[in-house]
């Protein structure tokens, strides 16, 4: 049944531009995919590594700004993309070296501070980043000569990258290294006694997380064709974290579900209310109080509970 659902989902996603009803919705779908990649990247650390970062928007923005800056400086699209991702991975390494001086709450505080530093650079180092005015990206890349200018074309390209991301994540999670990372999440002390280099495992996981965060940032840069300091705010980091925890960290489907939920809400909310931050905060509080494990595990729990109820009822009536 799972295979059928998966096949159905893939068909629906691939044919989306035809049935979703207009460019506006195609663009929202692209946004959801981009943020899903971002959330999947963050989930490597949060869900599988047990390390909560509130600074990932800084890495997201690093990729976006690097690409935008390189393109504006006349560097070719491919080189800009590679350069942007390379810089983001380097930045992730720097983040990791500093943040892994602590774990748990300390890690959170350090990543928060590091994200803020990057925001400060985007906002104040005006000669480099153009400050609040941001940087415009004149054109989207043309992979293999194909134009990505239309919403549908860009959506399909994004979908392919998303597919790659999901495949990479699935492979990572099922791999020995993935098992080690989860081990360090659950019993770091024991892992050391078993012969694992816990720091190095976390460091490499951070790089992997940063890589995909960078990919998402790159995608967003081309989607919006504009980067601004707003991408790197604490609010942004909080949003993507919300996607991970609302969907369910430590699962593959969770961040995707969370991204869908948050982007959908944000889109609907901005149409009717001006107060997205209020809604964001309220959802945060609600999720933490009511369904802390997130939507995906939470609904699995509900599903099992419902089935048990149905089985009990069936058993009772069959007597």
């Amino acid at each position, binding site marked *: 049944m799972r295979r059928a659902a998966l096949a159905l989902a893939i068909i629906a996603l691939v044919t989306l531009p035809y049935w979703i009803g207009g460019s506006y919705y195609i663009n929202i779908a692209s946004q959801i995919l981009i943020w899903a990649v971002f959330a999947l990247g963050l989930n490597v650390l949060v869900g599988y590594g047990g390390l*909560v970062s*509130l600074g990932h928007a800084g890495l997201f923005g690093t990729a976006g700004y690097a690409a935008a800056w390189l393109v504006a400086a006349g560097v070719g699209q491919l080189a800009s993309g590679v350069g942007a991702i390379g810089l983001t991975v380097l930045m992730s390494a720097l983040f990791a070296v*500093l943040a892994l*001086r*602590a774990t*748990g*709450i*300390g890690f*959170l*505080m*350090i990543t*928060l*501070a590091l994200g*803020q*530093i990057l*925001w*400060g*650079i985007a*906002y*104040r*180092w*005006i*000669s*480099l980043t153009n400050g609040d005015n941001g940087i415009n990206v004149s054109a989207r890349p043309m992979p293999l000569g194909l134009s990505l200018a239309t919403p549908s074309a860009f959506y399909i390209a994004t979908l392919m990258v998303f597919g790659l991301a999901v495949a990479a994540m699935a492979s990572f999670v099922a791999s020995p290294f993935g098992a080690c990372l989860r081990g360090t999440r659950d019993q770091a002390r024991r892992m050391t006694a078993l012969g694992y280099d816990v720091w190095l495992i976390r460091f490499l996981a951070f790089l992997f997380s940063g890589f995909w965060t960078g990919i998402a940032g790159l995608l967003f840069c081309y989607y919006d064709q504009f980067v601004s300091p707003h991408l790197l*705010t*604490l*609010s942004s980091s*909080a949003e993507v*974290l919300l996607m991970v*925890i609302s969907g369910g960290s430590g699962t593959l489907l969770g961040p995707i579900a969370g991204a869908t939920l948050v982007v959908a809400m944000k889109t609907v909310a901005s149409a009717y209310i001006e*107060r997205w*931050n*209020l809604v*964001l*905060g*309220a*959802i*945060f*509080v609600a999720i*933490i*109080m009511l369904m*802390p494990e997130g939507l995906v595990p939470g609904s699995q729990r509900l599903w099992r509970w419902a089935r048990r109820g149905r089985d009990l009822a069936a058993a009772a009536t069959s007597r």
Partner: protein
Amino acid sequence: MSQWVVLAVNSFSFGGLLFLLSAGFSLIFGLMRIPNLTHGSLFMLGAYIGVTGLRLGLDFWSAALLSGLAMAALGGVIERFLLRRLQGQELPQVLMTLGLSFIIADLCLMEWTGDPISVSTPGALRGVVPLLGFVFPIYRLAIVLIAVVIAAALWLMLDWTRLGAMIRAGVDDAPIARVMGVPVSRLFTTVFCLGAGLAGFAGMLGAPILSVYPGLDAEMLPLALIVVILGGSGSLLGALVGSFVVGVLYNFGPALFPELAYVVLFLPMLLVLVLRPQGLFGRQSL
């Protein structure tokens, strides 16, 4: 030359304000192990409530007191009804404070609109005083004085009262303190109220200098974070030293390195993280 003196004075007064903000943050973090991400919002909301107090005819000091008390009350409510339900789960508590900070920020925007509100210096403290050949704004000196007085009061409380002993015990080892009969839950509420109250009071106190505007919370919170990482959690001395270091960086930074000012602000914190993760005066490791 006088430009540097002005910057120095501003550094000290800002450091004083920051101390009032960070002392509470540091105590809360040291005792409850949660970085209270709502702290910046409490600073801002306190200032806004003080503004409303002024508009309702209160004098400046009554308004400032109102700010402090209102935020202490709000802090109590937050701790008792929201945070305590998640007792023992630090991460959800931190995320809760993050969510609350967004809610408070937007509610402030709704109530007081987006325009910055300036607050006039209280009458008695306007103007300047000549000292050692320079002129100093009286209000800024007053802030430093108030901060020092409160620092002394906090130190006395921590070192000489039973409450202070309980706080110190809790900061050292909360589970053991509980076992030894310290009412840790009530202590958490008390400290949270104290921290929140100080933050609110500081918000109003700083209003004549900083004004009150949306985004004030996002400006102040990272600074409190730097002070605590730099000075060490749960340490009053750390909060004092850290606040003045940050005060200096915050004022001299933009003057010396306009584009990298924000980075310069964080550098000592990064250095401390690499060389001495528990902070200059901290006792627990991050």
